[in-house]
C-alpha cells in the first residue's frame, strides 16, 4: 500500500495539498496554549529541586511501578466491563429505528450532563454500608458490608464515566455496517448468534478499537473517582501525582511521575493503534484518488465460542430479543441511577447527605439561588459554550484538513498533537496552565479559563469530526468540484452540511466535557472566577454541602431539555440527521 502515497501530488489538480492547512489553527493553538505549559511542567522533572535524574529514579521506584501496574489493571478492568455492557447497548441503538435511536443516544450522553463528582457522590450514597445496593445484597444473603473503597465500587464509578465514550464511536461504526451480509450469513445456515460472531462482530472492530481506547485512556488518567470510590487499595498513578503536587508540593517528583504515566499511556495507545491506524475506509492513491481500503479486521475463528454460539442458536435463545433489550434497559438504568439519587437528597432536611434523606426542606435550593452558586453557574454558562464552540471549530477544521490532505505530514503532526489533551492526564498540565496564565496576566480571568479549557475539548471535536470525514465518500466532493464549486464552496455546501450532525455532536460533547471539567478550573481559575464544577468540587470534597444535589437535580432537568431538543432536531432534519452522526453515507 505504501507505494500509493506520494507527496508529489501537491501539484495535481483536484484537492489542493493546501487543504491540510485547515489543521493549522488548531495546531498552533495547542502548541501555544497546551504544549508550552505542558513542557514547563515536564521540564521540572529534571530541574526541581536540583537538576538531575533523581526524580526520574524516584518515579521508577517499585512502589510507583506497582501503582502504575495497578492503574493499568483498574483501567483495563473498567474498560472490559464497559465493553461488555456497552457493546449490546451500541448494537441495539444502531439497529433501532431513528427516533428511538435518538432517544437512546441521548440516554447515553445525558449522564454526562451531570458532574462526574455528583455522580460519584451518587455512588457513594448508593454503595455505602447502609446504601440501597449493599442492603439489597445483604437481603439476598450475600455477606457485604460496604462496596465503597472496593474494586467493585471503583468499577461502578469508572465504568459509568467511560461507558459513553466507548458506546458512541461504536454506534457510529455500527451504523455504517450493511446488515445485509448478516442476512446473507443466515441464509447460509448460520444462526443469529453464529452470524453475529463471525460476520457482524469483526466488522465493528474499528469502533471497538477507537471506543475502547478512548475509554481506557480516560480511565487511566482519572483520579477524583478512584480517590473517593476506590480508597487506598486502588490508588492510581494520577492520584499520586495529584497528591505530590497538591498536598506535598513535590513538583519535581510529581512531574517525573506524570512523565512516566504519560509515556506509558502513549505506549499503550501505540499498542492499541489509535494513532497509527486511523481506520479510514479510503486510501489515497498517489494522484489523490481514493480507493476503498482493505479491511483491517480478520476473521474470528475461536472454536469454543462458535460452539457456544451454535448452542445459543440451536436452543433459539439467540432469537429472544427481549433478553438483549432487557439487558440494555438495565444498562441504561445503571447509567442514570447515580444522578437520580440526587433528586431526593436535594430536598433533604439536614446537612447530612444520606439516602434516604432525613426530613424535607427547600433550603438547598435557596442556597443554590444565591450569588455564590449562581455566579459560578453563570460563569460556567459563558466558559463552557464559548470554549466548546472554539474547540469544535478548531477540531472540525483540523479533521477536514488532516483527512483530506494528501500530505502525510499533517496527519503525522496533527493527530498525536490534537489527541494529546485527551491522553496526557489533565492534572499534569493544569499546573502549567496556572503558571503560564499568571505570567501572561490571564490568571483568574474568564478569557484565560476559556483558552485553557478549550484544549480539553479539542480532542473530542477532532475525533468525532475525523470519524465523520473518514466515512464521508470523497465522491461527493468530486461531484461538487466537477460542478464548478471551488474548494471553499465544497467545504461550505457539501462537507460541512453532510457532517453537520457530527459537528453538533462534537459541540455537545465539548460542552458537556467542559460543563463538567473540574481539574483545570481548580488550578487555572482563582478566587474571582469560579465555575460550577469547581464549586461542586468544593461542595462535595470540602464542604459536604447538599447543594450539590440541587445542581444534580437541575442538570437532570437540563438534560431532559436537551433530550427534547435532540428529538426535535432529529425529526426536523429528516434524512441527514442521525444518518450521519459520525458517518456520511449509508453502508454501500
Amino acid at each position, binding site marked *: 500500500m505504501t507505494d500509493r502515497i506520494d507527496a508529489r501530488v501537491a501539484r495535481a489538480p483536484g484537492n489542493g495539498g493546501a487543504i491540510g492547512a485547515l489543521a493549522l489553527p488548531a495546531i498552533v493553538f495547542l502548541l501555544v496554549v497546551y504544549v508550552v505549559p505542558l513542557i514547563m511542567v515536564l521540564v521540572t522533572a529534571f530541574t526541581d529541586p536540583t537538576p538531575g535524574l533523581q526524580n526520574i529514579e524516584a518515579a521508577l521506584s517499585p*512502589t*510507583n511501578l*506497582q*501503582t502504575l501496574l*495497578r492503574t493499568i489493571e483498574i483501567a483495563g478492568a473498567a474498560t472490559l466491563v464497559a465493553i461488555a455492557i456497552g457493546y449490546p447497548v451500541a448494537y441495539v441503538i444502531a439497529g433501532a429505528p431513528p427516533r428511538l435511536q435518538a432517544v437512546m443516544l441521548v440516554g447515553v450522553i445525558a449522564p454526562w450532563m451531570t458532574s462526574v463528582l455528583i455522580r460519584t457522590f451518587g455512588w*457513594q*450514597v448508593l454503595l*455505602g*454500608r*447502609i*446504601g440501597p445496593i449493599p442492603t439489597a445484597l445483604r437481603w439476598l444473603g450475600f455477606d457485604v*458490608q*460496604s462496596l*465503597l*473503597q472496593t474494586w467493585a465500587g471503583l468499577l461502578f464509578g469508572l465504568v459509568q464515566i467511560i461507558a459513553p465514550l466507548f458506546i458512541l464511536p461504536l454506534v457510529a461504526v455500527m451504523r455504517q455496517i450493511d446488515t445485509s451480509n448478516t442476512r446473507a450469513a443466515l441464509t447460509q445456515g448460520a444462526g443469529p448468534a453464529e452470524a453475529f460472531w463471525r460476520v457482524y462482530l469483526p466488522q465493528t472492530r474499528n469502533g471497538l478499537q477507537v471506543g475502547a481506547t478512548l475509554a481506557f485512556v480516560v480511565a487511566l488518567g482519572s483520579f477524583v473517582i478512584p*480517590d*473517593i470510590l476506590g*480508597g*487506598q*487499595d*486502588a*490508588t492510581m498513578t494520577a492520584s*499520586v501525582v495529584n*497528591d*505530590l*503536587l*497538591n*498536598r*506535598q*508540593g513535590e*513538583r519535581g517528583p*510529581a512531574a517525573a511521575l506524570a512523565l512516566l504515566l504519560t509515556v506509558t499511556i502513549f505506549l499503550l495507545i501505540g499498542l492499541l493503534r489509535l494513532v497509527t491506524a486511523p481506520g479510514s475506509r479510503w486510501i489515497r492513491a498517489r494522484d489523490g484518488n481514493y480507493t476503498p481500503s482493505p479491511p483491517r479486521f480478520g476473521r474470528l475463528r475461536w472454536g469454543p465460542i462458535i460452539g457456544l454460539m451454535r448452542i445459543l442458536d440451536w436452543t433459539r435463545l439467540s432469537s429472544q430479543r427481549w433478553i438483549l433489550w432487557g439487558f440494555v434497559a438495565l444498562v441504561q438504568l445503571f447509567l442514570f441511577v447515580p444522578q437520580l439519587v440526587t433528586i431526593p437528597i436535594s430536598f433533604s432536611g439536614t*446537612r*447530612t*447527605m*444520606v*439516602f434516604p434523606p*432525613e426530613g424535607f426542606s427547600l433550603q438547598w435550593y435557596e442556597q443554590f439561588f444565591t*450569588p*455564590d452558586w449562581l*455566579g459560578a453557574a453563570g*460563569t460556567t454558562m459563558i466558559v463552557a459554550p464559548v470554549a466548546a464552540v472554539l474547540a469544535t471549530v478548531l477540531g472540525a477544521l483540523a479533521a477536514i484538513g488532516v483527512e483530506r490532505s494528501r500530505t502525510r505530514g499533517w496527519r503525522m503532526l496533527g493527530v498525536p498533537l490534537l489527541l494529546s489533551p485527551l491522553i496526557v492526564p489533565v492534572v499534569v498540565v493544569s*499546573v502549567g496552565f*496556572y*503558571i503560564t496564565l*499568571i*505570567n501572561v496576566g490571564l*490568571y*483568574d480571568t474568564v478569557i484565560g479559563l476559556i483558552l485553557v479549557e478549550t484544549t480539553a475539548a479539542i480532542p473530542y471535536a477532532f475525533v468525532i469530526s475525523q470519524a465523520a470525514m473518514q466515512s464521508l465518500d470523497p465522491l461527493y466532493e468530486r461531484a461538487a468540484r466537477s460542478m464548478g464549486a471551488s474548494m471553499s464552496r465544497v467545504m461550505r455546501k457539501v462537507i460541512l452540511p453532510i457532517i453537520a450532525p457530527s459537528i453538533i455532536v462534537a459541540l455537545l460533547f465539548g460542552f458537556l466535557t467542559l460543563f463538567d471539567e473540574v481539574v483545570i478550573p481548580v*488550578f487555572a481559575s*482563582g*478566587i*474571582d472566577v*469560579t465555575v460550577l464544577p469547581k464549586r461542586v468540587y*468544593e461542595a*462535595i*470534597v*470540602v*464542604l*459536604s454541602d447538599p447543594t450539590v444535589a440541587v445542581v444534580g437535580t437541575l442538570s437532570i432537568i437540563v438534560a431532559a431539555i436537551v433530550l427534547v431538543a435532540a428529538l426535535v432536531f432529529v425529526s426536523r432534519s429528516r434524512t441527514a440527521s442521525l444518518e450521519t452522526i459520525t458517518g456520511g453515507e449509508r453502508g454501500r
Partner: protein
Amino acid sequence: SPASGGGTSKGRVVYAGFGGTFDDLVKKNFFDPFTEETGFPVVMTGDSPPPVGPIQAGVEAESPDWNILILNSSGLALCLANDLLQDLDYSKIPGAADYADPSYKHPKGAGMWAFGDVLWSNTAVFGDPLEKWEDLWDVKAFPGKRGFLNQAHKTFEATALGMGIEPADLYPMDMDLIFERLDEIRPHAVFLDINTINNQLSQQDIVAGPLNIIRVRQAVLDGIPVGYTWNEHLVDVNYYGIPRHAKDLDAASALIDYMTSPEVQARVAEALSYTPATKAAQAAIDEETAANLPASEVTDSQALHISADWWAENGVEAEKRFSDWLQKG
C-alpha cells in the same frame, strides 16, 4: 462569586481553610463579625490539608491567591520546609502577648486555639462507644470498617497509642513500628481526606476512627448514631500564617489581630468547642464547658499533645513515607 465583595480599594482576606462544618462555624462566629467591624471582606476556600502545590506556585509567581492559611503543626512544618510563609510582625498582634503557652507564638504562625481529635464510634453498631485506641485495633471484638485520615499527622499518634504505648513515652515515634501496626489494620480501614471521612461517618459507612471533635459533635447533633470518648484525645494547635508575597497584607494582619483579640478568644470555646490560646480566655471558661473542650483544665489529663517539634523535624519524611505506604495497595 464569593469575591463579590471585591475589595478593590480596601483589600480583602483570602483564606485557605479546612472546609466543612468547621469553616461554617468560623465564618459565622468570626469572619462575618470581622468584616462588619473592619470592612475587609473574607473570601473562604477550603481544602485539607492546605494545597501546598498551588500555594507554592503562587508564591513563586509572587502572587499567591491566599493571604491567610490555617495550619496545624504538620501543615506548618510542610510550609516551612517549602519556605512558603513570611515572618509575622507580632508588634501588630497585641493579643499574642497573652498566649497561654509559648508554643502558640511561632515566628511564622500565630496560634489560635487548641483543637482535638477524638476516638468516635457508631453506637448503632457497637452499642456503647469504644473507649481506647487499642479497641480500634481489636477487629474481632469490634468488627467494621475504620476511617482514618490519609495523612501521617495524628494517624501516627493514634496508631502508637493503639499499640499500647504510654502517652508519656510516645515521642519520639518509631515509624517502622507504626507502619507494622498500620499494616495490620489496613484491611479493615480506609484512609481518606477529612471531608470524605466526615461524609462516610454520616453515611455510616465507616464505624469508628479518629476525627476532629467539631465534626463528630455535628454528627451527633444531626442525629447520626455516634459516640466518642475524651480518653487520649489528640490535641494540636491551629496557626494562622501569611504566605510570602501575599497581597493585601493589611487585611491579613487585621484578621490575625482580630482573631487573637481578647473578645474573640473569649468566644472560641463556645463557638468552636476548642480551647482558646490566651490565658484570659482560658481562665474565663466554666467547669461544665471545660469538660467538653480539648486539653482544657478538665480534659487535659486525658489529652495527648501533638509534638510540634517532632513534626517540624520529621513531618516531611513521615508524610512522604505514609503516602508511599498508602500507595502500596
